[in-house]
């Protein structure tokens, strides 16, 4: 429990920092705009003739891949740039508390983004009779997936100490874990390395793990995957943030 000291103060400080500057507002506005655009234009929301949110959820991994590293890139790099990392390390608090406080603050902003899409859910209920349990489930797994994407960004931010570098590296890592389930990538892997290997690659893909939830199926495997993935990057984040003490 002592390791978690500093969690609530860090969480509040980081959440305040997002909303003290235009950062969170710009993120939310552009994220919602992009999500709307993809759902209606690329996803042809109204042309499917079905009252569900499949054309909406299908874009989540791709948009998260770009937007969430942008949200997380400042978490540690900003501390380093302004020298406040030294201030934090001089406080009697544990690194895990800092890491989780920062991650949860970014996750809360991402959750706010999802919350603001609820009118879309209301719309499909107005237009027809969707399976609301399935939609709630997809929202839940999408939120877990957002945590996984954010954990990449936060950990890399602690590693690089530069916001731009952190963003670029995080997007590349996120792309690898997203595109691994993309049919184009999978068929290439399959032809080069065989079906068995392609299956393994697909299993690590966010798209593959999120597919079940999009159909309204609760796969514990997917929940465990996203939580495990986040935990792994939280661990790496702790490791990389502690490195600072070594000089």
């Amino acid at each position, binding site marked *: 429990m*002592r390791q978690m*000291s*500093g969690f*609530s*103060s*860090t969480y*509040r*400080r980081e959440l*305040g*920092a997002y909303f*003290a*500057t235009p950062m969170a507002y710009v993120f939310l506005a552009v994220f919602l705009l992009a999500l709307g655009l993809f759902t209606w234009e690329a996803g042809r929301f109204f042309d499917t003739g079905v009252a569900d949110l499949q054309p909406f959820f299908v874009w989540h991994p791709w948009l998260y891949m770009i937007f969430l590293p942008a949200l997380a890139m400042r978490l540690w790099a900003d501390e380093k740039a*302004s*020298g*406040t990392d*030294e*201030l934090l*390390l*001089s*406080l*009697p*608090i*544990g690194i895990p508390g800092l890491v989780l406080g920062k991650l949860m603050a970014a996750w809360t902003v991402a959750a706010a983004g999802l919350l603001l899409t609820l009118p879309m859910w209301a719309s499909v209920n107005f237009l027809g009779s969707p399976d609301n349990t399935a939609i709630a489930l997809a929202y839940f797994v999408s939120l877990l997936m957002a945590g996984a994407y954010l954990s990449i960004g936060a950990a890399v931010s602690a590693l690089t100490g530069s916001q731009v570098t952190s963003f670029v590296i995080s997007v590349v890592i996120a792309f690898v874990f997203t595109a691994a389930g993309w049919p184009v990538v999978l068929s290439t892997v399959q032809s080069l390395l065989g079906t068995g290997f392609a299956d393994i690659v697909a299993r690590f893909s966010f798209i593959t793990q999120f597919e079940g939830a999009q159909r309204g199926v609760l796969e514990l495997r997917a929940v465990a995957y996203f939580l495990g993935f986040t935990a792994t990057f939280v661990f790496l984040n702790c490791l990389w943030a502690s490195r600072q*003490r*070594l*000089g």
Partner: protein
Amino acid sequence: MLEVKALEKSYGSRHAVRGVSFAVEKGTVLGFLGPNGAGKSTTMRMISGVLEPDSGDALVDGKSIISDRRAAQASLGYLPEGAPLYEDMTPPEFLRFLAEARALPLKSRRDAVDRAIADARILSVSHQRIGDLSKGYRRRVGLAGAILHDPPVLVLDEPTDGLDPNQKRAVRALIARMAPTKAIIISTHTLTEVPAMCHRAVLIDRGRIIADDTPARLARRSEDGTLESAFSRLTDQVEDENL
């Protein structure tokens, strides 16, 4: 109150701090002097638990910064070089963040914040964002953060650096007010303020302590009896020895 024992630190092949040891008692303000890159900030970072030493230890109010880091850090107030602060916060918000992070008892948090604001004389700017404050006020907000929990040991890295004479006087007055009840280490480049502010001066160069005396006795080591000349003579000597 503070005991520094044979601290060592290397960055790659560069030996930044080589066996630095000294002790500071309550009521003493110790001036930590030395040229740029002498190892002052590295030593202060190790004492504050920001950097892990390669070997050695620092006991803050009897608590080891190595084996009992958090307890030691709870007894220590640290102002890093340049007084880094969260610019998007107001001074009270920043102090409340520190009070929560330091897990001060809920009942005493407001009192601690009010007292630090009063002691650092920053009440008049408490509604402004830290990013909008002058350098002098920012330094005082940093000092307010360091004294928030009323620690017995204070480590202040260049608290007056870059301030105008009036701002320097205000910071010096604040340190003088706190001096009787605390052990304070201050690093500074401004040697003229050392006799007025410090009871003792430790001179460090190339990671080693080369003098530890009262500012007056240290000044007498030079031909013209000034601390500047003593500083130049002693640090030049080390340079010659290393040639």
